[in-house]
């Protein structure tokens, strides 16, 4: 009935008296990148955890590929193809690229009861996958700690895709990165979307979100300020919508006044 891959309709979440989320709606098609923008405390973390199956929404419905579903656990969400890459990336820096890539889902070989971790195959796949995104891992047994922040982010995303993600939820994937590294990660996100994934990109950085996003949802104090297609909104408008906008204007006025009074 709809061509949406995933729909989150009127999601609300309460913690006691606190309204963490109220009537947030997001719909994504295949290949679409939706950017979820919001300042600190806007409810981004709660929303991510709701998408990932950590929290159950108190109101609203989640529809995946036309079917109404309830996530009882993060595993449920993962089984439905909704993979969340958290800010900590769930990577162990002392472990090798391969061991990280297959952590918890190791490929096995050998007869029953004597199954061993097929390191050769794992190395090959890990190197291949990283190669596809332009990161040449000469030695997949090198520790993840030796990789740059951008490479790690790409590793975590590529791992989620390899294990069957249809919808990627990315939590601030560029927040700790420099300009160049961020652009590499964003490029990879666009590439992933072009291969048919739906991506929810959570960020407070409009400059990172605007170039890659197809649509933008702005979150403020737990409420959605609406979803806009790229053609309907400018970067500046987005910026000012994120609580920061108004406050920055106010700050500017205040600073001017201070300057004026100190000049006198």
């Amino acid at each position, binding site marked *: 009935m709809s061509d949406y891959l995933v729909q989150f309709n009127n999601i609300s979440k309460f913690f006691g008296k606190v309204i963490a989320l109220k009537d947030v709606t997001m719909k994504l098609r295949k290949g679409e990148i939706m950017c979820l923008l919001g300042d600190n405390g806007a409810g981004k973390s709660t929303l991510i955890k709701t998408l990932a199956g950590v929290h159950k929404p108190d109101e609203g419905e989640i529809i995946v590929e036309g079917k109404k579903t309830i996530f009882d656990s993060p595993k449920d969400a993962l089984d439905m193809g909704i993979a969340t890459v958290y800010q900590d990336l*769930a*990577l*162990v820096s002392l*472990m090798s690229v391969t061991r990280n890539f297959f952590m918890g889902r190791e490929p096995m070989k050998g007869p029953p009861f004597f199954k061993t971790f097929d390191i050769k195959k794992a190395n090959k796949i890990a190197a291949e996958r990283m190669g596809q995104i332009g990161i040449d891992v000469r030695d997949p047994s090198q520790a993840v700690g030796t990789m740059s922040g951008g490479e790690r982010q790409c590793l975590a995303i590529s791992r989620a895709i390899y294990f069957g993600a249809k919808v990627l939820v990315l939590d601030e994937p560029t927040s700790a990165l420099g300009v160049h590294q961020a652009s590499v990660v964003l490029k990879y996100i666009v590439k992933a979307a072009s291969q048919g994934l739906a991506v929810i990109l959570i960020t407070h950085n409009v400059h990172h979100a605007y170039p890659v996003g197809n649509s933008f949802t702005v979150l403020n104090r737990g409420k959605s300020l609406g979803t806009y297609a790229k053609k309907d909104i400018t970067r500046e408008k987005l910026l000012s919508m994120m609580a920061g906008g108004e406050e920055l204007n106010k700050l500017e006025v205040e600073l001017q006044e201070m300057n004026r009074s100190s000049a006198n």
Partner: protein
Amino acid sequence: MSTKSKSIENKTDFNQDERLKKVSKLRLLLNRPELGALGGAILVFIFFGIIAGDTGMFSAYGILNFLDVSANLGIIAIAAAMLMIGGEFDLSIGSMIGFAGICIAIPAIYWGWPLWMSIIFAFSMAVLVGYFNGILVVRTGLPSFIVTLAMLFILRGATLALTRLITGRTQVPGLRVLIENDPIAWIFATDTFKWVFTWLGSMNLIALRTDGSPLATGIPPSVIWFIALAILTTWILMKTRYGNWIFASGGDKNGANNVGVPVGRVKISLFIGTAVAATIFATIQVLDAGSADTMRGTLKELEAIAAAVVGGCLLTGGYGSAIGAAFGALIFGTVSMGIFYTDVDTDWFKVFLGAMMLIAVIFNNYIRRKVTESK
């Protein structure tokens, strides 16, 4: 977080990085956790080869002597290393050795159980103690250091109190006669490869007693257990899914959990591992000595941890090797026996042990920085 912010300064292109980083085989080898311990072991052997080469330390009898001591320590050091890689400590290993000892001796001597049943009883108790340690650490989230420190006192106290209550003493002798014809005890009490030593003796290649039998009669059971455990645990760490989970649980508990590693179960099983290893240690020693002593194993937990650290384990978990711990134990065992063959007062052994550990920690710390921040 600090490593993440570091990357901000890193503006080089991925492809460019690639050309910069040519890793030599030597560097790869240096990144192995057990390298320090292997180097240390070689140095120790060279040292005693020069100082005590002509004393008899390296006769068949001498070698078996220090191997036996190393192997005993190695059995618990390997288990301690596995647990440390999994991110936890077990300070109750030494007390568990004493407890396991009386779990074998009291039923066998005072309750008339067959020896094999007592041994199985001791191992069952070990599984219980390990499980209890593990579940307590996993459920409460308290540091294992504290939980197992409490267990150190509880177990040692219980061992002493129960033994005195039941036997009126602190030692339980009289086990030796029970070993013969027991269906299980031989696993912990038989010297192997006797024919090799008989043959070597007949060829006059090794020292003989006055009656013509060789002085060294066979490989002690501890050495066989030690080698078997070292191989088994190394295989588990390198080649199995469970091994990957151990590294993951110790490296980043939350991360591992998020990708579906059953961190709790992994940690509990490792705690059971240390308690069972302590019981293997205890069984071998009790059957060898023919008696159980309530104070047996005192401070052994710290020696085991020291050997694991010298073997390359990080105190923060997620890194280390079982074979490294084996080399660590070999260093300590060799020095503790070798020192008798030199003019040095044996009191200095503990000084060496401490210094060795300090050097290892500094070295490991350096290696870890290399591994995690080499960009």
